[in-house]
């Protein structure tokens, strides 16, 4: 059944190439959403239902944001690439990276045999064996997310907070004032 995953990945690569290369705006945005939904199907296939719920909504949100960002300004098609020379250099660099990576990726454990099956003292085994007893959460992903590695989750919430505050700051209409002027507070929407 691993071939299915391979097919899904090939589909995603094609969708990604379309998204990058097409000149039509709407096609590009829809193709990138297709990549996103490919990721979600992959998550379901790889037994990660927890993870799959969040990106469904996130993908839709990103789709809406991107469509608004472009359609709103009435821009339908794209113009081309950077200079030809720079493009060739980039492609050559990426090819070298790809060939190097293919060589070294043979060292990775085969797909379908995670490292925790071989490593006797991998933390994952502890989580699977003792998670329910330690934390009381039957969902081991939640146990990892909110108890064993809760500090990461605090960081994640903080990233979201920072990006919201940052986006509000960037969007605000009036950024500069005279030092003597009083503070103005506005919400742009």
């Amino acid at each position, binding site marked *: 059944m691993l071939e299915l995953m391979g097919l899904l990945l090939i589909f*995603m690569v094609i969708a990604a190439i379309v998204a990058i290369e097409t000149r039509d705006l709407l096609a590009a945005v829809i193709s990138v959403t297709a990549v*996103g939904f490919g990721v979600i199907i992959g998550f379901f296939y790889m037994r990660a239902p927890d993870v799959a719920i969040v990106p469904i909504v996130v993908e839709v949100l990103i789709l809406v944001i991107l469509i608004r960002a472009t359609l709103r300004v009435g821009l339908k098609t794209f113009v081309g690439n950077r200079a030809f020379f720079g493009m060739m250099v980039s492609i050559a660099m*990426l090819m070298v990276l*790809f060939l190097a990576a293919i060589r070294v990726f043979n060292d990775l454990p085969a797909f379908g045999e995670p490292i925790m099956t071989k490593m006797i003292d991998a933390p994952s085994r502890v989580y699977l064996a003792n998670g329910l007893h330690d934390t009381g959460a*039957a969902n081991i*992903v939640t146990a990892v997310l909110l108890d064993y590695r809760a500090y990461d989750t605090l960081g994640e919430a903080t990233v979201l907070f920072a990006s919201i505050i940052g986006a509000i700051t960037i969007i605000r209409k009036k950024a500069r004032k005279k030092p003597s002027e009083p503070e103005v507070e506005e919400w742009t929407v």
Partner: protein
Amino acid sequence: MHYALCLALFLVGLYGVMVKRNLIKIVIGLIIMESAVNIFIVMIGYRKDGIAPIMSKVMDPSVFLARSVDPVPQALVLTAIVIGLGVTAMTVAIALRLYEKYGTYDIKEIRNLKG
């Protein structure tokens, strides 16, 4: 094989970021790169014919340990997705403001700074 395809997806995104001139295309490139890394992370935790890492009353703990996929990458990827959303939101915010200032998404016409 699977990992190489994942990397190809990553490089397609990187290509978009490096070569394209349109701000929205650059954002799309970034999103593709993030998707590629996310699916890579979940792939390294997948176990063939595995089950989701959620215990149920009827399951024997030792069977669960022997069959469940790795829960850690799934926890990591959830964090990575939310971080990716934050970055995307901020990128689009800046792109919109740049549009307000310049009336275009083309990076060539925006180029004021020498670099």
